């Protein structure tokens, strides 16, 4: 029966969700910059509103260009569908708001993007949703933290800032034993490096702002559902298994066996919170995804060269990259991330002039940053251009050294996002800046 199989990643990245436009013959995906869509008849209108027919009504709820992106990323991640959102943060919020409300509880990894931590720790607690944070490697802590009202377990494929590799098979098993889904932020890895749904995760989201679009031009997010979690059997999700008065008493889990989460997320979350994606943004992300495999391969190859350079440099105290044997998740990374561990990592500057072996100072970190010529100093990752940031003088500048240490950050911690430039040029740039840091 050879010859019949799912298309490979590169093919799906170009074709999933899109066919030549039947109206014009346009081969590339058209940008449907239309707020709303004409009904064929009154009956057609009513049936669209009542989910008796599939189609587009209003671009906050769905849009043909956004739908191509949603279907494409769903195909790449191996999910049943997806929802494009205004940002990665909006995707995370949509996932949580669809399943949780006041009185709900979440268990999350401590190794999170700062924006995710802020949402969980500060903002959602104001709305009655409590989060317990656990060290991602502490499997017993994940299990112990689950409560009767826990709605989600949540972590990142590669945690911030130390690239802790989330043991998705084991954490998802803990979640499923308790009837709880596992939500994973897959931004750093993209489906080219890892497919969390295949490893046991139930929901995945991406900040498409990063590698998916890949060019630092847009802000967007995508939320993907694997379709295998049994919401009815869990007993924890009346939101999906009981009539919803906000949509004609619809019981989403009856309407769709594999897609009730996405149905509710779109028909409530997008409808009411409204954090939808612009079709123009979706089109730019689609352009990025078409070359995702090529770019990620180059991102990883460049990163490996830079990591190797830094790991051997006398001004570098340590490099946190899971492909290095020194990383605590080295073995797990080889199992879960055989194509590579991404292109974002941190390294630690060593103390100045080699006169002491301790950590660098904040001023050395600043000197390093200011000496760089190719790396751009800014707060983003996943651009085709190489990026750098010194957390102690920027994102975490209000913290003293002790507080920094508790966050896993030192005064001389530098975060790099390796781009697609010639790796030798990147290494020259870093070497020059390391000398500047040494002299400061």
């Amino acid at each position, binding site marked *: 029966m050879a010859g019949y*199989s799912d298309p490979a990643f590169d093919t799906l990245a170009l074709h999933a969700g899109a066919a030549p436009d039947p109206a014009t013959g346009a081969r590339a995906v058209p940008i449907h910059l239309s707020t709303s869509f004409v009904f064929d008849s009154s009956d057609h209108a009513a049936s669209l509103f009542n989910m008796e027919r599939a189609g587009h009504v209003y671009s906050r709820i769905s849009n043909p260009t*956004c739908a191509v992106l949603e279907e494409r990323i769903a195909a790449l991640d191996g999910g049943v569908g997806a929802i494009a959102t205004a940002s990665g943060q909006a995707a995370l919020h949509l996932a949580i708001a669809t399943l949780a409300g006041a009185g709900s509880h979440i268990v999350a990894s401590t190794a999170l993007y700062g924006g995710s931590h802020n949402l969980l720790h500060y903002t959602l607690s104001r709305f009655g949703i409590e989060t317990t944070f656990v060290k991602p490697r502490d499997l017993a802590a994940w299990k112990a933290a689950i409560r009767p009202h826990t709605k989600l377990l949540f972590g990142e494929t590669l945690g911030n800032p130390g690239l802790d590799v989330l043991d998705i098979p084991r954490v998802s098993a803990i979640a499923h034993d308790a009837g709880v889904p596992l939500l994973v932020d897959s931004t750093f890895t993209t489906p080219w490096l890892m497919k969390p749904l295949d490893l046991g995760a139930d929901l995945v989201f991406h900040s498409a702002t990063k590698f998916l679009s890949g060019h630092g031009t847009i802000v967007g997010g995508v939320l993907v559902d694997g379709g295998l979690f049994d919401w009815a059997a869990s007993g924890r999700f009346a939101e999906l298994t009981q009539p919803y008065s906000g949509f004609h008493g619809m019981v989403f889990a009856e309407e769709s066996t594999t897609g009730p989460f996405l149905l509710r997320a779109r028909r409530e979350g997008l409808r009411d919170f409204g954090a939808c994606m612009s079709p123009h943004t979706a089109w730019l992300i689609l352009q990025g995804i078409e070359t995702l495999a090529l770019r990620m391969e180059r991102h990883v190859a460049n990163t490996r060269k830079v990591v190797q350079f830094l790991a051997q440099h006398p001004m570098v105290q340590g490099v946190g990259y899971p492909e290095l044997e020194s990383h605590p998740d080295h073995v797990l990374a080889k199992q879960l991330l055989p194509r590579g561990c991404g292109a974002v990592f941190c390294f630690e500057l060593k103390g100045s002039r080699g006169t002491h072996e301790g950590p660098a100072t904040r001023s050395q970190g600043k000197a390093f940053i200011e000496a760089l010529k190719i790396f751009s100093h800014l707060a983003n990752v996943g651009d085709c251009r190489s990026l750098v940031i010194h957390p102690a003088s920027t994102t975490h500048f209000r913290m003293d050294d002790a507080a920094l240490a508790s966050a896993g950050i030192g005064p001389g911690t530098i975060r790099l996002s390796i781009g697609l430039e010639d790796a030798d040029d990147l290494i020259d740039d870093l070497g020059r800046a390391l000398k500047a840091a040494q002299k400061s």
Partner: protein
Amino acid sequence: MNIDLDGHGAYAYTGGKPFDATLPGVVFVHGALHDHSVWILQSRYLAHHGRAVLAVDLPAHGRSGGTPLGVEAAGQWIARLVEASGVQRTALVGHSMGSLIALEAAARLGALASVLVMVGTAYPMKVSPKLLELCQRDVLAAIDLVNALSNSTHAAKPSHPGPGFSIHGSNRALMRRMQRGYAEGNLFMADFSACDAYGGLAAAAPRVQCPTTLVLGSRDQMTLPQAVAPLVETLKPRVVTLPAGHNLMAEAPDGLLAAINQALQQDQAR
């Protein structure tokens, strides 16, 4: 809606409206490793347009208990479900394996059956021995193979059940859920063996009293559109061919709904 049959719960989705047995009925019968949710659009539309809808989960599928049945026994099960529902007259719409079950049910229901619509069908519905062997050895691989053959495109519009869904991913997940949900045995093997073993057309066809429509996918690689000659010869059906693969409910939801509506009108014209 749950109906008790043989001590097992039989589940049928009623299209998002309470079931009203005084209305003309439409019974939807899913195919192998599927459940009622494949009919969500067509069943929901008809339920909101004057029909009493029962989109069933066959025994051992989805929310219905029991064990998997062969085609004739499943046809009997549908006939008893219809009688238990209290509906006076009903159309029968089946997909793939479900089309054969609907045929058997129509034969048993006689004058109670108003219309028979066989979607993505063939007779005989032979299954490759290699596929059955694969499902014994690696059922997930067998599901992937059937999924690849069932969908003719990765870009069906407007997608199913709505924009943003991957019909390919949804169908794969549904088949995995059905396989996982029947822990007592290999549901894939049971369903596809039932298709392969069915040989009841000659006995059933003379007992079918209602008009029949075949709805075929021009790109169907599971039940090839040319593999309906015995059905055409015996049932004298109206044949509608849509530009779709085997997964017609998802690839051509509006075209299929139109074909079903035409079939229902055919009954009204009688």
